[in-house]
């Protein structure tokens, strides 16, 4: 009888009654064949693999992370709360040691959802990994957490949420932003002033094969993880790097995904994108499940896989090596970063954001206080085509007294100004969540 080396909990929730629209890639059919494949392979009968039902995330779970306008209920539906709840269930299984690892095979995805939410972008409304990570920190203590995002699209939402957090290392490998949505994730995007180097972007050229992905993993990602020493590794397991994916241009295979997972050894994996629902998902998910459980996956193979046709062009190989070296150098040099200004001053950046799924435009002014003691008080002013001017204030987990007091000063000032339609304060330090 087959036995898993690592006990694995799978939260499988295909939401067979939910779609963005009938022919949208994010539709009812998306995980149908994955379920067929996992069932036919008898995955849930393997000793050490268990299937779990997701819980439903609460509004508080979402408000711990996001500034939703006008409110949480308006920007996300039950399907999003279940998807985030599935990720939370995965985290609980691992944190409470019921399982060694967990895989939330849930939809819809979340990694394009940013700190401020006015609607859906890149098929995402709320960031399910971030909701999970902050649930972990709220209930199991402040942890150093690494998120490795292997979706083909740059996880600009996750990057935005963790831009200023020195305790979260966000690494994304994705197809180069010059060739694919959302058009971001370049090597110089390295995090805010209090978390420089804690955002790592590795843009890969179109037609990168198994060889290129695994090279980057072994030579770039694993050394950075060794240096960061996370308490937990989370894989945002998007599956659209697959050579059959209809909306991307990469050449990654199911066995490649499995190998990547075997090397990365994530504690928790959460499904992100991946829209080749017949040709890729059944095989990629099977490969990931077997690799996470420590069961032999060497017989996993797509019906149409042709290793010769998937061979990587040497020019691409050279290019990837160069990108990898650049990323490593930047990561190592980030600790010498001195250009960030004096503590107590604000670093300000302006961001225009487009919500492609809902067709919303937003403009943000994000200010973060430079601080040597904590992640720094965060203030965002946001104006969008669906909501008037809003004010967001976040007192981070482990905030110093100065940053906390500054947060309440901004709140008071914001109320007096009387120009904000909505004001929301997230105080993680004292667990105070306010809305006006």
């Amino acid at each position, binding site marked *: 009888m087959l036995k898993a080396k690592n006990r694995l909990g799978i939260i499988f929730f295909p939401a067979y009654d939910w779609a963005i629209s009938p022919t949208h890639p994010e539709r009812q059919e998306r995980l149908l064949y994955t379920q067929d494949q996992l069932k*036919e392979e*008898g995955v849930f009968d393997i000793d050490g693999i268990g299937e779990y039902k997701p819980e439903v995330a609460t509004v508080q779970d979402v408000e711990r992370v996001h500034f939703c306008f006008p409110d949480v209920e308006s920007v996300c539906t039950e399907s999003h709360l279940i998807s985030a709840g599935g990720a939370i269930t995965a985290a609980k299984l691992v944190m409470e040691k019921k399982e060694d690892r967990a895989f939330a095979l849930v939809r819809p995805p979340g990694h394009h959802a940013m700190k401020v939410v006015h609607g859906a972008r890149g098929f995402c409304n709320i960031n399910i990994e971030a909701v999970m990570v902050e649930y972990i920190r709220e209930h199991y203590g402040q942890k150093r957490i690494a998120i490795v995002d292997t979706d083909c699209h740059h996880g600009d939402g996750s990057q935005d949420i963790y831009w200023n957090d020195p305790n979260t290392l966000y690494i994304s490998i994705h197809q180069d932003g010059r060739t694919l949505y959302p058009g971001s994730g370049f090597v110089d995007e390295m995090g805010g002033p209090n978390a420089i180097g804690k955002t790592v972007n590795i843009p890969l050229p179109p037609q990168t094969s198994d060889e290129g992905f695994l090279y980057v993993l072994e030579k770039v990602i694993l050394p950075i993880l060794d240096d960061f020493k996370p308490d937990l590794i989370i894989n945002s397991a998007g599956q659209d790097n697959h050579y059959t994916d209809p909306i991307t241009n990469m050449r990654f295979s199911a066995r490649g995904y499995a190998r990547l997972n075997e090397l990365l050894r994530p504690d928790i994996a959460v499904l992100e994108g991946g829209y080749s629902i017949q040709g890729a998902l059944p095989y990629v998910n099977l490969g990931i499940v077997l690799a996470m459980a420590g069961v032999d996956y060497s017989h996993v193979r797509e019906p149409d896989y042709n290793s010769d046709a998937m061979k990587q062009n040497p020019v691409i190989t050279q290019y990837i090596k160069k990108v990898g070296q650049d990323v490593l150098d930047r990561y190592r040099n980030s600790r010498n970063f001195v250009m960030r200004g004096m503590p107590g001053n604000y670093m300000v950046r302006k961001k225009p954001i487009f919500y492609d799924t809902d067709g919303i435009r937003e403009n943000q002014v994000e200010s973060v206080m430079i601080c040597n003691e904590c992640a720094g008080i965060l203030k965002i002013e946001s104006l969008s085509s669906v909501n008037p001017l809003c004010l967001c204030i976040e007192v981070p987990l482990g905030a110093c007294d100065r940053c906390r007091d500054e947060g309440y000063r901004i709140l008071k000032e914001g109320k007096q100004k009387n120009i904000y339609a909505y004001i929301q304060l997230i105080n993680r330090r004292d667990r105070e969540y306010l809305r006006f």
Partner: protein
Amino acid sequence: MLLGLDVGGTHTDVVIIDKTGIVATDKVKTNHNDLLETVNRGIENAVKNVNRDDIERVNLSTTLSTNAIVEGKTENVAVLVSAGPGVDPANYRLGEYYYSITGSIDHRGTEILPLNTKETDSALKAAKKAGCKVYAAITKFSTRNPAQENRLCEKIGSAADFITPGHMLSGRLSFPRRVATAYYNSAVWRQFNAFAESVEKSINGFGIKANLNILKADGGTMPLAVSKGLPVESILSGPAASVMGIIALCQVTRDSVLLDIGGTTTDIAIFASGAPIIEPDGISLNSAATLVRALRTKSIGIGGDSVLRVRDGGVVSVGPDRLGPSLADGGAAVALTDAFNFMKIDSHGDVNASAAGIAGLAKNNGMKPNDLAKKAIDCAVGAICDAVRRLVDEINMKPVYTIHELLEGKKVAPEQVYVMGGPAKAFSKRLADALRLPVNVPQNYAVANAIGAALARTTMYIELLADTEKGRMIIPDIGVSRDIPAGYSLEEAEADAKKYLLGHMKKTDVADRHIHAEILDSASFNMVQGYDTTGRNIRVRCQVKPGVLHEYNDVLRNLC
């Protein structure tokens, strides 16, 4: 009139029921070396004063297949598998004659790689040389497209006395379970058929002209003709017979718990709105998971003979083992029954022996005998209650796949407890207090299993899959495969599922004229390529659920 026969591990129970109630019952010891002799003896006693012409249906629950498998006394099977990519099929090897052949079918039933002819031929040659006369042929996704399994069967041809093609066992997916189920089906085929035929002859010998039906683990029956091709469906039908008996005796209609407390174990079953809950995937036997549908039951090591122990600090434990009978029954170790006797809750067997035993054990551990007995009973009741709660939780935590079911899905919340078995009465008040639920101890529980067997109706379960892009609809379990138009709808699929299911049951000669087929669930998925809808993938699961024969519904009132 119905005749129910339950061949159990120690006893064989026979009951004859007509529309007014129980007509005759009998209990004989099971002779494991000659089950036919046991059956003959049982029937002979029971039919003495009965007009045999009136018997219209004989239902038999037998341990024959189960025992053969558990004891490893089965025939060699040549197993031919073709798995394609995925988990290495070597992991599912059963028996010595297991051959893996290259070939592949994908999840939509498309043939990706044809069966390797050379490998097939050499496997068949090896199996023949080894003297295998029964075969099993299983290919991955054969329930989506049985072509490769059928080709294997053709190739095996007359070399086999019997072949089990995997897709005929069930429409459900699970290649490993299909391998195990097909293997066991072929392994017990010869023994089961020899037995079934001799039982049939013996019944005829008694002048009974009724149809013979075989009880299944899901609490339903299958006609003898069906059982000859699916002997594996007869495994582990014993617990199901008891559960069906309680339904008949107690007219269970609400969410309820059934506890069958024996000497060694307590078996727990749960009812949802009066219907027993089915194991979602299939029952396990000899640690191999199968596709055999079964009632969901759970067994824990608490019974009347469970041994009492006292650890340091006066912690009392009960079971999970037994060291022979209790003192009350002439055994050597202090057991749970003795505690009940001491507390005067029960007065079973040698009450004085119980009292002396409890007093002695208490003295050795510096306890008051009263405390010891009370703690033992609390411990046993606690263990049963914990197991009941865990089972109910597990049932309620069963994964679901739609938002509607997740948010609105029905949860099982027991409102009633039924307790049967030797120590049932002694336990009833304690269990009622601990579970805070009304507890009922039915009369006649001694032959509940045979009553359940007698009254069980024929059940069946099928899965229909339609792919309008391919223009095919298949129901693998009953060999239906036909072309469908592009406009084939979910409603048509549901109607077809019922039609083919009932049609198949009528063909195999079912006496019950009020069969009701219900749709368990159904769904239709738009299949999209690029930005165009190319067809619909429709799935329907349909069953005739376990229950009491409709024509005998009225008899139930007379049994309690």
